[in-house]
């Protein structure tokens, strides 16, 4: 190697670093004590929290969201402050929120660092459906909209009860929800997905898998012979055909009878937020249609 190549590499590195330095800079907002009546400055690090804040009418207070926060569309206009659970600590400091709400952190130490900058951190659990509803109250209380949150949560709870059906075990359709094809994965007991399936009157074939979000082998799926398969992601090409092409899947009931469903918006069953209740109602309709057809 010649020396000039070394210097060229050094120059290239320094140039890239300079470009990085001068682009995407956000001015730092001086942190002052919040006066009575000042709007609360909020950051949400999770799409479900963002949805809840919009539902509570707090979108004006939202000054930062995560890259995963894509719903509702207006969320796209809010500054992205990092990935879900992994905020950009610099950006958080620069925009100086009063309260940052998250469902998880990639590194728990981050909480301490953020709190040291003067922002409060609220961590909410959204493991199952009940926790999602409870989190609405918690968020509402922290954001000073307790009553609105309580009403909203109550409404959701009523809808959940309405949509939760009692079906004897033998009449529940066996359901497999495919979250990704490679590796083949699904949700077992302890996930809101399993919660939705059971409440909607189905029987989740992965219910007893042991780990909540889990991989599942194709032979296990085939062995359980699901009557309904829900594809919870965008699949290229025709879903029914591509499942028929999978080795050994042609004999699975759902594939044979055409109960391979790819029309449910994945966000409704995969995003732990208020729209899970919409997902619950859609699943309930689906399972009811299946049972009615069976009875004929």
């Amino acid at each position, binding site marked *: 190697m010649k020396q000039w190549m*070394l210097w060229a590499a050094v120059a290239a590195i320094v140039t890239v670093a300079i470009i990085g330095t001068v682009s995407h800079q956000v001015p730092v907002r001086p942190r002052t004590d919040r006066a009575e009546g000042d709007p609360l400055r909020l950051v949400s690090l999770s799409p479900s929290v963002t949805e809840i804040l919009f539902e509570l009418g707090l979108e004006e207070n939202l000054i930062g969201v995560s890259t995963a926060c894509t719903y509702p569309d207006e969320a796209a206009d809010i500054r992205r402050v990092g990935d879900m659970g992994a905020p950009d600590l*610099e950006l958080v400091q620069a925009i100086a929120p009063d309260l940052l709400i998250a469902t998880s952190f990639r590194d728990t*130490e981050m909480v301490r660092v953020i709190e040291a900058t003067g922002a409060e951190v609220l961590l909410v659990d959204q493991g199952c459906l009940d926790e999602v509803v409870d989190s609405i109250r918690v968020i509402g209380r922290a954001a000073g909209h307790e009553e609105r949150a309580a009403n909203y949560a109550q409404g959701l709870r009523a809808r959940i009860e309405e949509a939760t059906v009692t079906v004897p075990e033998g009449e529940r359709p066996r359901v497999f929800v495919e979250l990704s094809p490679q590796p083949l994965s699904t949700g077992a007991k302890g996930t809101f997905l399993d919660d939705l399936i059971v409440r909607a009157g189905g029987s989740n074939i992965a219910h007893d898998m042991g780990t909540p979000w889990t991989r599942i082998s194709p032979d296990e799926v085939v062995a359980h012979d699901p009557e309904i398969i829900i594809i919870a992601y965008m699949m290229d090409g025709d879903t029914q055909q591509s499942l028929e092409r999978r080795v050994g899947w042609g004999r699975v009931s759902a594939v044979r009878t055409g109960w391979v469903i790819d029309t449910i918006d994945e966000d409704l069953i995969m995003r732990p937020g208020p729209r899970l209740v919409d997902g619950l109602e859609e699943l309930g309709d689906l399972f009811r249609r299946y049972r009615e057809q069976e009875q004929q």
Partner: protein
Amino acid sequence: MTGGQKLARGIIILGAALVVSFGWALIAGHARVPVRGLFSEQYAGLVRIRAARALLGIIVGAGLSVSGVILQGVLRNPLADPYVLGVSSGAGVGAALAMLAGLAAMGAWVVPGAAFIGAVLAILLVYLLAREGKAVPVYTLLLAGVIVNSVAGSFLIFLVHTTIARGEGLHSVMWWLLGSLQVLEPGRVIAAGAAVGLGVLITLFFTRDLNVLSIGEEPAAHLGLRVERTKKLLFVVASLVTGAAVAASGLIGFVGLIVPHGVRLVVGPDNKVLVPLSALAGAVFLVIADIIARTILPAGELPIGVITAFLGGPFFLYLLRRQRRGGVQ
């Protein structure tokens, strides 16, 4: 130019570069901190975060570079580097196991200590696997490194995956495999700084021995060097430094390859000059690489290992090719 002059000049130039890059690191970032604001209370939090990162960059950069110089010298192999040889992965497994066992709370020394043990075991394994008689041929060394790297890396992913649900602060797979200079616990920076400082200091006392070793083990023995003892000691130093770096920042690859070779290209192979200048150049390199890592995306940061691998991978292939053409071993 004599060695002493080269060294003096190198220290002045790289020392100045280090001061400049450190200052630059304080200003660079997604939040705009004006030069005037560096000492004002308003920006104190940001400046402190950035200073801690730059400091860790200096420590890890210097450590990995010196570790590379040692391994290249002792193994008489230009392709040796703690990352390529699986030493970093071994250190990662040690650190992860200590965190899992809940030992991290016992003190800032425990995790780097466990990483050190992992690194020593990995070096031993690679060395014993690769040795043929008295020689350590390039290809068997690289293969042994690849295997140890792959096994240790898989084990690391296994540990993270099986325990991630328990949320025990084991970082993410990404952190382990591609590294980050994000500083969340100041204790780790101090521990890493002390270990790397000690390692570099010891290495500075052994630069003459490294030079003697470079002419071959037998001639070195004829010149009165206690070859085996020196090699063991230098392996231990390389493990100490690598372990401390990995425990604090995960696996940042190829630094020990890029930096010493770059420095060698300018000042030649004399370890008396090479060791201190590689430490300085490595520090500057990692501080600037980290500036890129945390500013190149509009929000969030790129793992710093992506940047070092982007530079180091092609460079490694170039060295491999040159070595084959040169017909060495």
